[in-house]
């Protein structure tokens, strides 16, 4: 899984969009620059994985402490 160091991807091209962020500090700790355009099928697969992962979180019950906070907030109405 380690894609570390400051290695650059051969054949990497900078799109015009990348120049827009040229002066922005790069927090991406891999140091890998702009990736090549991905095949539509790879994109679709990543999209499916993202939505599967995300919907598993959306489906989790909202913790009581969050619901309790909402309840407390509505009860303090008029006292702030």
């Amino acid at each position: 899984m380690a894609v570390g160091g400051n290695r650059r991807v051969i054949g990497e091209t900078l799109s015009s969009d990348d120049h827009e962020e040229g002066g922005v500090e790069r927090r991406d700790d891999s140091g890998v620059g702009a990736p090549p355009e991905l095949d539509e099928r790879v994109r679709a697969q990543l999209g499916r994985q993202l939505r599967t992962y995300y919907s598993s979180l959306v489906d989790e019950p909202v913790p009581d402490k969050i619901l309790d906070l909402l309840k407390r907030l509505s009860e303090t109405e008029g006292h702030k």
Partner: protein
Amino acid sequence: MQSRATSSYQDALISEMPNLRAFAISLCGNASTGNDLVQETLLKAWSNRDKFADGTNLKAWLFTILRNTYFSEFRRGRREVADVDGMAAAMLASHPEQPGHMDMVDFRVALDKLADDQREALLLVGAEGFSYEEAAEICGCAVGTVKSRVNRARGRLAMLMGVATSDEFGPDRMTHAVIAKAGT
């Protein structure tokens, strides 16, 4: 006594909680910080409810407050708090029987390795389904910047996930593998 307006605002907030929380946890890299971030967001959303104009998009408004709070107050501690390996281990232990579970763990770990702004853009557009324009408004940046971040996020995810290939190949080989796969 609750006014009707307050109670409907509260109901509207409640209905946004599952998605707001999913976004917070994905952004923070762990559930406990994510839940704290949601609570902080709720406090701000509540104290600023007078500024929320009827007819505007409550969801986008909440997401804006949450991401601003994350970047101004929560991100600093992220590296110390985020525990991807621990989280992966916990996920492994919790639902090992689920099909595709390993894929999900790999995905979670890879997502957490993205730069914050790339992960944010990918979550807003790819997971939440905001348009590039809406995401740009939420992030306070140009539409082109959002597009660029989403593209970078996808590219890095592909490499990290080994959609390209496995660890024994360097990034150069991985790139070629992605391209080769793309050509099939």
